[in-house]
């Protein structure tokens, strides 16, 4: 058992050292948590706060995010990288509006009460700051296509994770249901579905994500225990 335990600890230490040395190579994964678009970067806050009163609404927002934001950023990156910044802004909005129409029709087939679920917060994504900031970032930094796709993928996953978590938690707490199915006969309060509580939950999650990020960076940048003690001994000598 002792051997197994030391083996596990050694493995964790190796992973930690590898992460510390190769941090920049896997930076694109950060969108999931360490640079989460909602919790850390503060982008797309309005839909995440106001429109996540149920899991269904969260799923609709997630589909909207992938379709509108990811596609819009990719199109702008490839087709408008040479255009001026002002033109790119206009292009972002126009492409978003064009992309929104087929998505709205498709979503309406699956979710007939689309406007009741998410209200204005789905169409408002057309002009969301996340599109502009990401497209400008990728054009300016000249990332490789692979890195851009990976970053967009993990940022989308980060957004989906947060909104679905918020949607599910708020639905259970407000109505005692999840995806419309009763799971808790005594919900806390229907006020949980109001935007005020959404702000509250996002704030708590953002604080937790920030604390986790700080701890993670501190952990991977820590000196190995043996080396540190050796250095101290040398210093004392």
């Amino acid at each position: 058992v002792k051997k197994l335990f030391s083996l596990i600890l050694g493995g964790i230490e190796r992973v930690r050292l590898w992460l510390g040395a190769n941090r920049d190579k896997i930076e694109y994964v950060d969108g999931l948590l360490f640079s989460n678009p909602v919790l850390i970067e503060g982008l797309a806050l309005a839909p995440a706060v106001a429109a996540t009163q149920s899991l269904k609404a969260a799923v609709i927002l997630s589909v909207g995010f992938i379709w509108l934001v990811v596609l819009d950023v990719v199109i702008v990156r490839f087709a408008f990288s040479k255009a001026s910044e002002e033109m790119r802004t206009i292009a972002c909005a126009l492409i978003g509006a064009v992309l929104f129409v087929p998505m709205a029709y498709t979503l309406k087939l699956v979710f007939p009460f689309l406007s009741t679920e998410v209200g204005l917060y789905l169409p408002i994504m057309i002009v969301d700051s996340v599109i502009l900031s990401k497209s400008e970032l990728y054009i300016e930094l000249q990332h490789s296509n692979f890195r851009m796709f990976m970053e967009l993928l993990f940022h989308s996953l980060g957004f989906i994770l947060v909104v679905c978590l918020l949607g599910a938690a708020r639905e259970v707490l407000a109505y005692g249901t999840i995806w419309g199915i009763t799971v808790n006969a005594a919900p806390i309060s229907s006020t949980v579905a109001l935007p005020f509580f959404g702000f509250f939950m996002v704030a708590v999650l953002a604080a937790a994500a920030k604390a986790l990020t700080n701890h993670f960076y501190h952990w991977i940048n820590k000196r190995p225990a043996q080396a540190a003690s050796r250095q101290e001994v040398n210093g004392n000598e």
Partner: protein
Amino acid sequence: MDRTSPLYTQRFYPCKEALIAMLPLLLMSYVQNGLRPVAVVLFSVLCGYLMDMLVHRLRRIRFEKCDLSAAVTGAVFAMLMPATVPYWVLFVGNLVAIVFVKHAFGGYGNNIFNPAAVGAAFCMFMWPHRVFQYPASMDKLPLLMSDEYQYVSSPLATLKAGGVPFVEFADLLTGDFVGPIGASGIIIMASVAVYLIVRKAVDWRLPASFLATVALVAFFLPRVHTTRLESMIYELFCSATVFGALFIVGEPVTAPKRPQSKYIYGVLAGLATMGFRYFGAFEMGIVFSSIAVSAISSFIDRRVSNYEGRYTLSKQVFGGDEQ
């Protein structure tokens, strides 16, 4: 501030005074509803104090035993609640007040909003049916409430519904009316106000300007069909308005620091309170108005400071010319 300095513990002087000032209110609530309101306030005080101690430990900051600020937060929060409020509501309210309002901004002396007001506002939003239902006056309550208990609405709720509350002036004097634990009679509230002002725990400018504004608005713009004077009396004394003026608006941390700013702050808080009462969803406006106005407290201070600086400069320039 240096923790070894003897001045350090003096920071908590207003907290001690506030707790002492709340004792007569607690005694009155005991006379009215028995041991239950006393248990509610003590539980809330204990919750606040222990939670503060825990958060200090989590933040790796030394906790001073003489730091009674969290106990005051717990007491003020409980005083804004009815005597029938469940204990778990008190726990949640204190959690919000201490963790999310006090320590999230850096602890005592750094908070932008009044922690007790935010805790109360949170509970009012979340469980209005628990917070706005009161026991009848002189009804002795058990320590653990049952679901069958018959609640009554407060005079402020009657005013909100457009009716005239049936409360006699003598009852307003003695505090024999339905309301939160902190809503007491004029005599008791006046003695509490005098104590706090004489002991310099509260600057008189804040409650005075606040109460004057509430009285003027109620007098000139009554919301029910009654005489102007009656409207003023009901708005001032039928709820925890005076309590809020002393313990929420008059709180030294969130209020502005300059004397002129305090007048402006009190007037704005009074106007906002009446605005929330007249047009808001809930009968109690003071917690929401204090949150709204304390957000611009330092802005008021800055504007007044700029104005004073300009005024002094022009006085020096023109005064010098005349001489």
